[in-house]
Structures are given as structure tokens and as C-alpha cells.
């Protein structure tokens, strides 16, 4: 009796889990191309927003740091570096545009899971604005100098998100610039 019962439990659970797995595998497969495309679109929009004068972006990588070389014709306009920060919620994926001399052109956030209304303000733009007020602070500053309380104002009630972005930008871009010059 007991063995029969346990067998029945196992079989029912097993069948349900198997069906669920199949359904999810199919769903994942169907949606993956679209999800990847959305990510690439987001990134592309970010690249064009940061360095609008460039007409080609070539994807490259140096020592594990992914970046884009932005060219106008044959002239190097700047670089767009992929930077990931550990935010309050989860990863914050960004693209940072730098001129070859190390000055930040702009920071665009691709993906973040910060608290809506607080940390998410790092990526919140008022209607008519291109970029959030927080991110605009980075423009025109040398990458190795950006620091909260020094020349970057954090967002009220979102210190962790603000610091995460600032520190990641400073460290990753400085590292990139030292590696790419070689």
C-alpha cells in the first residue's frame, strides 16, 4: 500500500515537472532570439546616444573588457566600454563613452534592477531629457576622477546605487584605458 502510494506521488510529480520543463524549454527557445535582440538594440541605442558623431562602431575586447571602437570615417572618435556594476538590486549594465584622452563623453544604463523611485532614478529622465540628471554628472569629467561626494552627487535615498555606478565607471574605465593604450 505504502509503496504504491509513494510510487503514485513520484509519478505524478515527475510527470508534472517533466511537462513544465518541456514547456519552459520551448518558451525559452522561442523568446531567446527576441530577448538577445532587445539587449543588442538597447546597447546600440546607447552607443549612438553617447557618441552621436561616430558612424561606425566596431565591437572588440581587450583582456576580457568588451568595448566598441567608435569611428567617424577613419578617425577614432572614442570608445564605448561595457561596464557592469553591482547595484543594490542586481547587476547594473552600462556603456561608458570615453574620448581617447580619458574624458567621459556619457554614461548610458542598459539594464538595472534598482528600487523603483529610488535607485532606479539613476536611469530616470524627465520628459524631454536625453539622460538622467545623475548620469549627466559624469559628462566631461576624467574617468579616473569620478567619485561620490567629490564631484558626483549621489541620489537621495539611493547611496548604494549611486556609489555602485560611480565606482564601477571609475575603476573599469581606468583599467580599460591603461590596457588599450598598450
Amino acid at each position: 500500500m505504502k509503496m504504491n502510494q509513494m510510487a503514485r506521488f513520484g509519478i505524478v510529480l515527475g510527470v508534472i515537472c517533466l511537462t513544465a520543463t518541456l514547456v519552459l524549454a520551448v518558451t525559452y527557445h522561442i523568446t531567446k532570439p527576441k530577448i538577445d535582440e532587445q539587449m543588442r538594440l538597447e546597447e546600440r541605442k546607447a552607443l549612438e546616444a553617447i557618441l552621436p558623431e561616430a558612424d561606425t562602431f566596431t565591437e572588440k575586447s581587450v583582456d576580457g573588457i568588451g568595448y566598441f571602437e567608435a569611428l567617424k570615417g577613419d578617425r577614432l572618435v572614442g570608445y564605448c566600454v561595457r561596464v557592469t556594476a553591482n547595484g543594490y538590486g542586481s547587476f547594473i549594465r552600462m556603456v561608458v563613452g570615453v574620448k581617447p584622452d580619458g574624458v567621459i563623453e556619457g554614461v548610458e544604463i542598459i539594464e538595472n534592477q534598482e528600487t523603483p523611485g529610488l535607485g532606479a532614478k539613476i536611469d530616470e529622465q524627465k520628459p524631454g531629457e536625453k539622460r538622467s540628471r545623475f548620469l549627466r554628472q559624469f559628462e566631461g569629467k576624467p574617468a579616473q576622477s569620478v567619485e561620490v561626494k567629490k564631484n558626483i552627487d549621489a541620489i537621495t535615498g539611493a547611496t548604494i546605487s549611486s556609489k555602485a555606478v560611480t565606482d564601477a565607471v571609475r575603476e573599469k574605465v581606468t583599467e580599460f584605458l591603461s590596457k588599450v593604450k598598450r
Partner: protein
Amino acid sequence: MWGFGGRCNGVRLLGEFVKGLWRENPTFRIVLGLCPTLAVSTCVANGIGMGLAATFVLLGSNIFVSLVRNIVPEKVRIPCYIVIIATFVTIADLFMKAYSPLLSRALGMFVPLIVVNCIVLGRAEVFSSKEPLLKSILDALGMGLGFTWALILISAIRELLGNGTILGFSISRSFEPPLFMILAPGALLTIGILIGILNYFTMNPVRKLFSNGMKRSLK
């Protein structure tokens, strides 16, 4: 009236749908699913998105729990329901990421958290594990839409008072919005006061709900 074997009739079926909207509203009456409600209702867009996503999950889960209700042994019913619910949540999450990335980004981690939304598991356990398919579908729709309008109301209040906007459109610049309205205290205050007001204006609601519940369990 509808001729489903004479056991159901149109009015009773409609009642299964309508009860979730008001008399047994999951947020204000049964008081379930408060965790995502508190967290997500910071702006109307999030409220609508979460409400619709939860309704989709409720629908899927109620349908399949009702379909397997005679096959699943009682002792393993909770793991079975959770797997079914989690499957629909993942489907919703993947499709949202693919076709509505803005909303997906706005709701963030609270979409996966629909799995532990007490409304979903609650309806599976209390209703669709015991009721036939059509009733389960109507129950899911009613509860889901009830949850959605509750979310919209709460989010509208919090967004308006805490951010000066509705659906992102700036309504008033004449006051500096109190930040706490889009934080935890604002959520608790808004929901608490709303429940109080709704209770006050529907006289003796606790007694009514109790007597309805009694009538149902004695059937």
C-alpha cells in the same frame, strides 16, 4: 439557464467572476498578495503591469490545477501547484523580457516573485483544486482583475502624492512630493487607510463576509 448539465446557471457563474472584483477583492477584502502590492505600487504603470502579469499567471494556474485536481494526490499537492505556478510565471517573465523590456525592467525582481503571491497559491488551494474548469477560469479572471484595479488605485495615490505624476505625466509642481509616499511607510499607510475607508462605507463587511463564507462551506 446555460444548460451545463443543469448544475451551473449563468447568474451563479457570473458571480464567480464578479466576486473577485469587489465582495471578495483579494487586496482589500481577503487581504492577500500584499507583499508585491506594497512593493510595486509606486507608480500606476508598474501597478497595471504587475496586475496583468499576475492575472495571466492566475489564469494559467487555475486552469491547470483544476484540470489535474483529480489526479494529484493530496499529500503532494503543494509541490505540484508550485511547479505549475512557477512555470507560468517564467513564461510571463520571458515574454515580458522579449516583447516589453521596459515594463520588465520596471517591475524587475517582482515578476519572478509572483510565484509566491499568496493570491495565486491561495486560489489554487482554496478554489481551483476543488472546482470545475469553467468556474476556475472565471474565478481567476475576477480575482486577477480585482487585484489589478486595487493596484491601480493604490499606485495612483502613491504616485500622485509621492512623485507628483500619474503614469509618468507631471500633474502638479506646486508641492514638493513627500518621498515617504513611494517608500514603505507610504505603502502601508495607503493600503491601511483604503481598507478602513472601504470597510466603513460597506456596512458590517466582516459579518457579511463571514456569513457568505459559512453559506458556501455548508453547501
